[in-house]
């Protein structure tokens, strides 16, 4: 039982991070390298899921993903049911972790000397090669840190997930949801076991990241 919940939590967390990472890295790069008038608005908008009550984010997602929302006709036409599925849990965790990842990436890219990118260009490297051989490796510490933050945030996600994915044992019940459900049932012992599992998972992820990052610390 506990094993299954941990497994679902890990799956949801990993899928959410993988889903959020590519757009978050791209957006972080744009925010670090480009100046445009709407930039403060974009930055504020990106931060919203982090500062809004997660329950409100969940409600927003419910509207977007539900058959009765504005996109309802689309979902019905595609015959897709997202609400109360594991996909919805993944989406909720991704949305909530996205701002952390964007912020970390923006900072990491901003610290990369743009001159190095220009030198790489002058040496014949196209935009993609410059990004993957110079910019991303030099920003990798910060980007990886953002990935780990988003992942651990996804592991603990509760409010938005509860609204849009429900607490369905064996399908959408992650650790945070499981703990809440056990407390509601008065099953303190089970709740504490799940708490311990959460603790171990979060500590393991952060510790693993710190050790990994320490090993690949780039030279000054």
């Amino acid at each position, binding site marked *: 039982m506990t094993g299954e919940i941990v497994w679902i939590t890990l799956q949801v967390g990993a899928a959410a991070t993988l889903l959020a990472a590519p757009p978050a890295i791209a957006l972080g790069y744009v925010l670090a390298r480009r100046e445009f008038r709407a930039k403060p608005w974009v930055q504020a908008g990106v931060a919203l899921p982090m500062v809004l009550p997660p329950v409100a984010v969940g409600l927003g997602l419910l509207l977007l993903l539900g058959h009765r929302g504005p996109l309802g006709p689309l979902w019905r036409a595609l015959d897709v049911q997202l609400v109360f599925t594991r996909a919805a849990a993944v989406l909720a965790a991704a949305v909530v972790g996205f701002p952390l990842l964007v912020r970390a990436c923006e900072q990491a890219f901003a610290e990369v*000397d743009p001159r190095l990118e220009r*030198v790489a*260009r*002058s*040496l*014949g*490297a196209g935009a993609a090669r410059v990004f993957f051989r*110079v910019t991303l490796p*030099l920003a990798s510490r910060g980007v990886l840190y953002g990935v780990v933050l988003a992942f651990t945030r996804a592991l603990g996600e509760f409010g938005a997930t509860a609204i849009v994915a429900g607490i369905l044992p064996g399908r959408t019940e992650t650790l945070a949801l499981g703990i809440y459900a056990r407390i509601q049932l008065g099953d303190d012992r089970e709740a504490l076991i799940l708490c311990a599992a959460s603790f171990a998972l979060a500590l393991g992820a952060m510790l693993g990241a710190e050790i990994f990052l320490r090993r690949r610390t780039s030279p000054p």
Partner: protein
Amino acid sequence: MSEPAHRIAVRLARAGFTLDVDVAWNERVAVLFGPSGSGKSTLLEVVLGLHPRVHATVRIGGRTLADPHATALPADRRDLGWVPQESALFPHLSVEANIRFGSPRAGAAGAARLAQALAVLELEPLRARRTSELSGGERQRVAIARALASGPRALLLDEPLASLDLPLRARVLPYLLRVRDELDLPILYITHDPDEAILVGELAIVLDGGRVVATGPPREVLWSRAVLPLSEALGLENVLEARVRSVADGAARVETPGGLVLSLPTPAALAPGSALRLGLRAQDILIAVDPPGRISARNVIPAVVRSCEAVGDGVLVHVDAGEKLVAKVTAGAARELGLAAGTNVHLVIKAQALRRLA
């Protein structure tokens, strides 16, 4: 009349600064000379293609890189070997990976270029090093090798010695001269150091306030009228106003408002009373503590030291000899002579060292 091999023409207005340049030349090694803020770096960026939206004409080595009437070549297809200031090595790559960066899969040709770059800059012993383990001079050599190994059709050197102290400069300079002489590449060399400009270039293009103020052989151009205010801005030279007192034996005796009397050669006839402007380089003034005996130098002038100022490669000695002059000596000489504010000295100036500016 065929077109010159090299041409840069661009007009670019920024907040508070306008770069307006149209210069063409044929010499293989050209020096772009000017103080900081004169537009050298912006001009270099235009040549590199880093301002894609700016209309410019750029032709280097007979190859057109940009033309206002056509699509400009993007920066990654200009085949220019750029050695930026302070080397800008990729910190996450080894020395060898840095040098290889510009020819990732060039096969035999790339291997040959890598071998040549390692040989010319004597980097073989360092190829496996991390860049963080290199000294300043080594970093600069790696940056030059990286540019060479990419198979460039021209080299752009942006103040390659500016970040190095004098002893290191002396160690890197021979490599630069070797690159200049052994490889038949057009070179555009940016510097604000007149000595470097004279040593390296066949042609000097002098930039000030975003405009070309002079072009010509470095030795002549750096002393020209147009460059004069620039020399003063660089704080290197003595400029004196003087009037001719007498002329005899092909030499004129002139006197400054402060009462400094100097002898200088006069190839053309000079009427007594006519006004002159003279230039004198700081390192062309010798300083003697004891009065020198019989000596060929025509000017031996008593003076008092006002202050001494250590600079990168020596000591600037500010003296008062009727006029305020600055001489440049080595730190060792300043120490040995005990030069300090108040020291009485004799300035020894060859007549030939006095340049007539106007």
